[in-house]
């Protein structure tokens, strides 16, 4: 601990920089005052207002539908592709292709899908947001699952096949259980990313089914209200919990 010396200064600066906005936001969410800036005593009033806000609730519902659907599809496609790349291919082109969605700027992916879907006359809505989220979701699941696969012993799978189990049985009985923690961690990752994703949803969503980030965007643009502070605090609580859970799972992955 004493070795860090003067590095204490940048460390402190960074963490102050990272957490002051978060703390201010949470404190302000319990503000009784109508103004989002001045303090009027402690109250949970804005959480009650939030709970009755139909736009927010509808947005939340839409977001959950998209996130759940995108997670299921991403896990299926991402796991398959991870096993395929790790065990059945050694093409470095396919490796980078499968990771590309994590690198392509989200605005490019968003407008690309917008143009593509309108050219093939697909109406935009929650389904198109879901489709779009699977593109990057799959890449993240594949990355997490591959990391795990590289640590597991392929001879287990060979043994299973040598003992007469079919491909399908081997996949579901040997491969999948051995990478389960990574699959769950990947699923949590995609779910959280999808819940929060704004840019791609902004371009691929239809006007009548806004996801929660789109609802937040219009709220923030319209003006600052303490209600947004309350919503922000709740969302942070959800993300923090999900990230810490995923962290525990990956740690399990590492230690097994």
């Amino acid at each position, binding site marked *: *601990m004493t070795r860090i010396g003067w*590095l204490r*200064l*940048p*460390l402190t*600066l*960074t*963490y102050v*920089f*990272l*957490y*002051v*906005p*978060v703390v*201010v*936001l949470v404190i302000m969410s319990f503000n009784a005052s109508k*103004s*989002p*800036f001045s303090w009027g005593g402690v109250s949970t009033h804005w959480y009650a207002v939030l709970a009755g806000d139909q736009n927010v609730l509808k947005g939340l519902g839409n977001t959950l539908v998209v996130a759940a659907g995108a997670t299921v599809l991403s896990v299926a496609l991402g796991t398959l*592709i991870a*096993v*395929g790349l790790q065990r*059945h*291919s*050694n093409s470095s082109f*396919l490796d980078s*292709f499968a990771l*590309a969605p994590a690198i392509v*700027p*989200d*605005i*490019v*992916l968003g*407008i*690309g*899908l917008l*143009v593509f879907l309108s050219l093939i006359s697909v109406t935009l809505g929650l389904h198109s947001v879901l489709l*779009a989220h*699977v*593109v990057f979701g*799959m890449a993240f699941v594949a990355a997490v699952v591959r990391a795990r696969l590289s640590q597991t012993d392929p001879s287990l799978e060979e043994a299973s096949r040598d003992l007469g189990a079919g*491909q399908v049985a081997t996949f579901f009985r040997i491969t999948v259980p051995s990478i389960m923690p990574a699959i769950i961690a990947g699923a949590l990752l995609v779910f*959280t990313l999808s819940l*929060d994703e*704004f*840019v791609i949803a902004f371009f691929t969503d239809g006007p009548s089914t806004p996801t929660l*980030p789109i609802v937040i*965007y219009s709220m*923030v*643009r319209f003006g*600052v209200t303490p209600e*947004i502070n309350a*919503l*922000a605090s709740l*969302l*942070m609580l959800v*993300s*923090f919990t999900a*990230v810490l859970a995923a*962290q525990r799972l990956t740690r399990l992955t590492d230690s097994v």
Partner: protein
Amino acid sequence: MTSADLVPGRGASRRRARVERVVFLGPGIGYLIAFMAIPVLLILSLTIFKRGRFGGVVYQPTIENFIRAFDPIYLSVLGNSLVIASITTVLALALGYPTAYGIAKLAPKWRTIALIAVVLPFWTNFLIRTYAWIVLLNSEGPINKSLVGAGLIHQPLELLYTRGAVVAGLLYAYIPLMILPLYASIERLDPQLREAAANLGASPWRTFRDVTLPLTLPGAIIGSIFVFVPSMGNFIIPELLGGGKTVMVGNLIRDQFLKARDWPFGAVLALALIMFLVALFALQSWVTRRLNGGGRT
């Protein structure tokens, strides 16, 4: 050569290997071709066509979109984005490098906690993180209030809706992406190398310059790309924290596709963004190769 090919002379197993490859890789690769490769290629191909009169595209080849991109108005937006993204990246590096270095020097138990603490805000909604800065920087916000309260200033400062606010927002949004790769490269560093340099009489500064810095450069470059690229294409932070006064490439692209409905020109701007990305990755692989080639002798 797949592992199946090494099994001596059985056509059946080779055929099975091919079927397996298709079963495992087919769905995912097919999905990415349909919903990533085709859309991105489509955007690239739009750049050479004329815009329709009421939006849409007329399929007549033209180079006027490219010429238009060199209009001083658009060049200044590009330049502006470049400046803002660069300032953000430099600040992220200046703050991120010593932070990553400090984290790597912590006791192992604290290291994990420190790393999670860096990533945690990154997982909260991007809009919320930006919104937090509207609250902070507002003329009635906590910063101005405490400055006025402390008697340091009489009038609240104009903090929000400035370039500085945009840089602060971008820095806040992306600094974890700088710290993580830096940490990874610093942590991998063999402490014996530094000890050897010190034993041979190198000053701490010289050790840092000649040993630590070159070896952590790849991490610094990756981190810089991770900060620079999304900063450059961001359109929300300039809008919400810059108050529309600061226009960046991302805002232009969004407006061309959603407001002006000039897809071909928007596509040219998106292409400019992609070209920056490609150039940066080329630079990154060049530097890494040079370091791996010449650095060990």
